[in-house]
């Protein structure tokens, strides 16, 4: 099975293209490709670019928080020129611009960066390889899925330049705010946002149908359910989350679109008086309905962010500790119960919209229940480390640091999950700290781990280890400097989404118990965020230079891994495998006593 890379190239082309040898042209290869690997790469590159864009948005915001009322250096005048005086007079970010950057940061990070990179990129590239499939089950749907995603991204991006600017009602787009922010331009940023979301949802639906069907139908011979790598399980459950949780948001999006464009009142109650005047709508709608429909997606969505990330981490860790995952089965059952439970916890985001004891108890009970399988998964990963022979490389460093980072994020979910303590913490910076620990040092680290890990398979070249470690050190240090202070700010009662960084509340207001010290933390966060950005430079350099001049892989299986993705030629040709892959054993047979090497690939005949 082990061939050298150059040899692999030839053999692959021979066998896979043997029957119909036609090279697709540029468009066929890069834009209208139906090959899951190319689609994965398309997703990956677009999503990383959006990640960078989302970061620039937040950087501008963090500057405003640290130095409210002062012009943003360099960028400020540019913003004023591009987006107009209303938005950034004199280079100072106004409230509206702050809100629209905030909403778009959330939207872009979640729907255009992290989900696409985890599900679209890694999911597409790795899942079929790991189950021994020649491609996704519906390659053309797969292509359509990417195109919808891309179009959605274009719409979202274009919305910055509409009159009135991009959506500015938070990534949650609560009605009535979303419907009444701009009564002048009815076709406003919010409308773009909704259209963009409908496209992104369509993309996710196509993707999830494809993933689930692929995993059900195209597992190769011997690849029974319990021999699937954990990553595949994570993708499988994620697929169901997207499949069943997204449509209600699509429905809600259509309703809000009607409210905005056709004057209906799905989410607008009677007697609204906006800006001192009665709003001329029929009323009779319910603002809470939007929230229910949004969070029905919103909560499963956060597991969409974390499950594939845990999947990647599990792969990288077991490979680098040279040991099977401890408690693989319980991890699988946990991931299934997380998937199931995540559909019935959503109202923990709505405790303070007014809830009676019965409903609140139901939702906090399910919320506590869902934390248990998360604890089990994390515990299993921690325990796996015991007795391992851990290698520290860029991929494993990121994967290992994922564990405590996700731990912190998950643990801080608990006081939010109890409704009574959420009274104090709701919508404070504690919440921001909580979820960024899961999505930023959590999910993003998993993404980095995945990039370092699969890069050699995708390009045939290694990434530079020194730059990688530099990237890791800077990232983990500054990540914590950015997000840890937020817990303190939260405890001091600082609210999120405040364009003045809290000056209105903390301007010496002693009764709040707030001393202006919290405001100083904003400064620290700003500099740390800049540091975080700088720490990504080694990565970007590494990423691009390694494509062309990285060290060539010595074999098709440079990490001496066990799963089927490493049993392909490098990079895998169209059709992926040379000959029919067969799985003879479980996914993580490392250090099997009595085996000739410390890894026994799934595809190796017993």
């Amino acid at each position, binding site marked *: 099975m082990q061939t050298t890379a150059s040899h692999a190239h030839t053999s692959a082309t021979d066998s896979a293209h043997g029957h119909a040898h036609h090279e697709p042209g540029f468009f066929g290869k890069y834009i209208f490709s139906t090959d899951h690997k190319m689609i994965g790469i398309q997703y990956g590159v677009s999503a990383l670019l959006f990640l960078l864009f989302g970061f620039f948005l937040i950087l501008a915001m963090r500057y405003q928080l640290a130095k409210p009322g002062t012009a943003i250096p360099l960028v400020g005048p540019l913003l004023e020129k591009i987006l107009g005086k209303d938005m950034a007079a004199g280079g100072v970010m106004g409230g509206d611009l702050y809100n629209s950057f905030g909403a778009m940061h959330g939207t872009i990070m979640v729907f255009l960066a992290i989900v696409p990179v985890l599900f679209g990129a890694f999911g597409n590239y790795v899942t079929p390889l790991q189950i021994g499939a020649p491609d996704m089950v519906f390659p053309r749907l797969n292509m359509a899925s990417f195109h919808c995603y891309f179009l959605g991204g274009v719409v979202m991006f274009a919305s910055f330049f509409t009159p009135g600017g991009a959506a500015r009602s938070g990534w949650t787009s609560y009605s009535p705010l979303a419907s009444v922010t701009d009564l002048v331009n009815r076709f406003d940023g919010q409308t773009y946002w909704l259209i963009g979301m409908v496209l992104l949802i369509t993309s996710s639906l196509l993707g999830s149908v494809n993933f689930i069907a692929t995993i059900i*139908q195209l597992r190769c011979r011997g690849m029974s359910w319990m021999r699937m790598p954990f990553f595949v399980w994570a993708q499988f459950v994620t697929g169901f989350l997207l499949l069943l949780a997204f*449509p209600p948001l699509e429905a*809600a999006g259509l*309703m809000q679109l009607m409210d905005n464009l056709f004057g209906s009142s799905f989410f607008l109650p009677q007697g609204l008086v906006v800006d001192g005047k009665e709003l001329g709508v029929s009323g009779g709608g319910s603002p809470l309905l939007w929230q229910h429909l949004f969070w029905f997606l919103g909560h499963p969505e956060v597991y969409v962010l974390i499950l594939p990330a845990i999947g990647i981490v599990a792969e990288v860790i077991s490979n680098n500790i040279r040991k099977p995952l401890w408690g693989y089965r319980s991890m699988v059952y946990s991931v299934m119960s997380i998937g199931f439970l995540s559909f019935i916890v959503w109202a923990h985001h709505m405790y303070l919209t007014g809830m009676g004891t019965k409903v609140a108890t139901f939702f906090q009970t399910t919320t506590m229940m869902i934390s248990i399988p998360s604890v089990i998964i994390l515990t299993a990963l921690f325990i796996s480390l015991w007795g391992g022979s851990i290698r520290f490389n860029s991929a494993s460093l990121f994967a290992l640091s994922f564990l405590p980072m996700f731990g912190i994020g998950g643990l801080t979910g608990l006081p939010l999950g109890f409704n009574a303590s959420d009274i104090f913490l709701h919508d404070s910076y504690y919440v921001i700290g909580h979820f960024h620990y899961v999505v930023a040092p959590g999910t993003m680290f998993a993404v980095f781990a995945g990039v370092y890990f699969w890069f050699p398979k995708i390009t045939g070249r290694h990434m530079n280890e020194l730059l990688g470690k530099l990237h890791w050190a800077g990232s983990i240090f500054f990540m914590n400097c950015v997000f840890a202070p937020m817990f303190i700010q939260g405890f001091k009662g600082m609210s999120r989404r405040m364009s003045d960084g809290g000056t209105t509340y903390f301007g010496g207001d002693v009764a709040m118990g707030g001393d202006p010290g919290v405001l100083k933390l904003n400064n620290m966060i700003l500099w740390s965020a800049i540091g975080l950005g700088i720490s990504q430079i080694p990565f970007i350099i590494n990423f691009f230079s390694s494509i062309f001049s990285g060290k060539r892989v010595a074999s098709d299986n440079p990490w001496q891994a066990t799963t089927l993705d490493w049993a392909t030629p490098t990079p895998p040709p169209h059709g992926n495998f040379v000959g029919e892959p067969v799985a003879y054993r479980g996914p993580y047979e490392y250090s099997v006593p009595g085996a000739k090497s410390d890894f026994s690939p799934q595809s190796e005949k017993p």
Partner: protein
Amino acid sequence: MEIPYTYKARPDTGLYNAKVGIWLFLASEIMLFGALFSAYILLRVTAPAGFWPDLALAWPRGLLNIPIGTFNTAVLITSSVTVVLAWASLKMNNFARFRVYMVMTVVCALAFLGIKSFEYNDKFSHYVVRLKDGKSLTGHIEVDGRHPRFWNFDDQWSVAKLTEKKIEKIKVEVDPPRDINGHVKKHEGHGSDAHPAQEVAVSDIESMGSYTPATHPFFAVYFLITALHGLHVLVGALVLAYFAFPGAKMWKSNPEQFINRIEVGGLFWHFVDLVWIFLFPVVYLL
């Protein structure tokens, strides 16, 4: 390398790929329409009393055209049976019969859409006119000898617009009175006298609006769900039409896969029918 199980069933699941795909897709469609139905029920349950002026009810009932709705239901059910017969014909190796049934299906789909658009137009030109004395009238209106048309936005009237155009009187062809359940009162009967035209002075009107999404959440729900359903009908009709003609080439090259395609297309079509089976009683009758 070919993708396996495109037309042969995979032994352990017993299913071919497209069938897995379509059922997954339908599951997501259940959630989509399910969310809309949930929204409808929630809005209706929490609607404030007296919100719809015509009846002492929060929610308008019986405003949609039941005979037409019934007819459309029958049309859709017919199309559902013809599509399954089309599939059965292929199974029995009778391509000609397959094509006949498929064409019938598509014709039914188009008939359904045609009738639906007729209904839409009727609603857009139907008005609720709230008078200053607290009473209200519903019916088609006539302004300046013209009936509003929904494709013409200049034709959508409001008090402000009437005043601006210096129109002083409009004519309302008042609907027959209804009882509390929204049923037309029996003794009123049908026929021309059921629509007495009544002149109304614009100065007496508090507000008015056609039966459009902006007038009441009921119409918003009605239009949203039926339009989304209509879109499904349209897409389904296009796909089935494709299978009946250009796509039918596959019958020669790969009959098994072609039959599967018809089955999958049929599954989608039945689902569209299923949605309507619930939609019809819920929005027309309840």
